[in-house]
């Protein structure tokens, strides 16, 4: 579905991505793990066209979408759930969702409202709260709204940026349950960026490890869960063994 080849992105003189290559196949959930500042968000922003890359290519399906404008990327079927949710806190829950279908709203209003009902079906809590201002929702509800908003554009590929951030473990497992359901029911392909390696590898098929702008490791989730280095650095296990 998406294939990224030796992508390099700079912020001024600071290099955020150093030749990153990865791919996500149709119907897969792929996770991208890494610590703070590893370049995870930079990668998503480069895919979405929010930041331009200096070299490398991004192919979506057959199409080369390197450095395409964000509007066109959304139209092609890539949608991002940004880090820290970034809701429009002044707008109501319903308006936030409608914003998600911004590109379709003018021409296909009816379709958008139908789709809104589907989103309410996936997240019943959002239906209850639809007239409330988005800023007044709890953390978990806000994350659901952020995901719902991204789904409103009917993406083929959903990019999730740290959906577990700042949420209680119980809510995190609820959110991840929804993520797996999405793949099964809506056939959405997902690229999941996480710091919480344990939860992410449980739902993902494959994973990549990003460190200081480079992919240092890749493999199936099972392999990664068993990898000693991962266990030490990302899962907090076997810490002593390695160092002694």
């Amino acid at each position, binding site marked *: 579905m998406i294939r990224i080849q030796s992508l390099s992105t700079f912020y001024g003189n600071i290099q955020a991505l150093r030749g990153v290559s990865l791919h996500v196949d149709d119907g897969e959930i792929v996770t991208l793990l890494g610590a703070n500042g590893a370049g995870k968000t930079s990668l998503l922003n480069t895919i979405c066209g*929010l930041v331009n890359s200096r070299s490398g290519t991004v192919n979506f399906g057959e199409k080369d979408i390197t450095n395409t404008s964000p509007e066109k990327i959304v139209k092609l079927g890539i949608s991002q759930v940004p880090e820290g949710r970034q809701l*429009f806190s002044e707008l109501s829950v319903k308006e936030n969702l409608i914003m998600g279908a*911004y590109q379709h709203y*003018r021409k296909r209003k009816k379709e958008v409202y139908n789709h809104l009902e589907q989103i309410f079906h996936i997240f019943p809590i959002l239906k209850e709260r639809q007239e409330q201002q988005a800023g007044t929702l709890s953390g978990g509800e806000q994350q659901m709204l952020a995901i719902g*908003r991204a789904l409103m554009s009917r993406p083929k590929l959903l990019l999730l940026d740290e959906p577990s951030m700042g949420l209680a473990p119980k809510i995190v497992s609820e959110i991840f349950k929804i993520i797996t359901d999405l793949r099964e029911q809506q056939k959405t392909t997902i690229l999941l960026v996480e710091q919480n390696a344990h939860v992410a590898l449980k739902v993902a098929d494959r994973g990549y490890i990003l460190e200081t702008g480079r992919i240092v490791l890749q493999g199936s989730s099972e392999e990664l869960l068993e990898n000693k280095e991962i266990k030490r650095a990302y899962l907090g296990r076997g810490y002593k063994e390695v160092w002694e």
Partner: protein
Amino acid sequence: MIKDSSYKKHIPTVILAIILIIYPFASGNNYHINVMTLVGLYTMIVVGLNLLMGYAGQISLGHAGFFGIGAYCSGLLNVKMGLPPWISAIIAIIFTAGIAYFIGIPTLKLKGHYLAMATLGFGEVVHVILSKMDWLTDNPDGLADIKPFGLFGIKFDSSFVMGQYFMAWIIAVAILVISMNITNSRVGRAFKAIHGSETAASSMGVNIAKYKVQVFVLSAVYAAVAGCLYAHFRQFIAPSIFQLHTSITLVTMVVIGGQGNIWGAVLGTVLLTWLPEWLTVAEEYDIMFYGILLMVVMIFMPDGLVGRLTTLFHRLWSRFSPRTQAEENG
């Protein structure tokens, strides 16, 4: 509200219209009617500035500049080239829109303080140019002998107080209604989204740069409309009104009335235009008073007067109707 077909939303507009129609007859004082005409002109600018600040989250400390460009452009075309006021006004509005477009494209890439400084700089440049224009106006004090608007042989000059009053307010209410429709539309949501989070808005596919420039141009057009009316009503314009002091007063009107609320623009304008009239005793200190007012509003009612009053109203309402309260809690 996404679908708001109820008649309720028209109630405030109708009430305002009734008050505006009754006012000049009830007042009967030409001076007071003239002040209200000025309120009408400022309302146009403040409504536009409110769209820019309260909805799209940008700031402009240079809107007196657009007000001035509109006024001078229309005035000069009329006096120097002899164009009829209506034609010169239309050209002036288009010209101002063009300038706003070219200023807006680079300027609106800036954020926060930088944007404030850039627009402030623009406003001052306009003021300096207008001040040095005496070679063109033949008069160091300003531009005189501007012709009044004429309609079916009636001249809207300064002796026709009622005519100017109604002309100003009909246009102001039209601008108000247009702006309200914009805020309730897809475009209005896009503005609010940009205000909420630029990153998220652009990942939804909102073309941020385009919308920012659009709303900036729209607010400049409103200011230019007010400028043209001002020039042809007063028939004399001087650069002194088109400077930073006015820009700041305009921003204060937006903030005190309530950012992100079109009605706030009206209330803020009425209040701040009348205040100096009431404060004639302490004339020298009016700027100090504005400052204090601005501080009090920012600290105690960041949503502005209208925002505050709406909350109070809702609170009272739920107190006196226990059923709605139960619904809210349930």
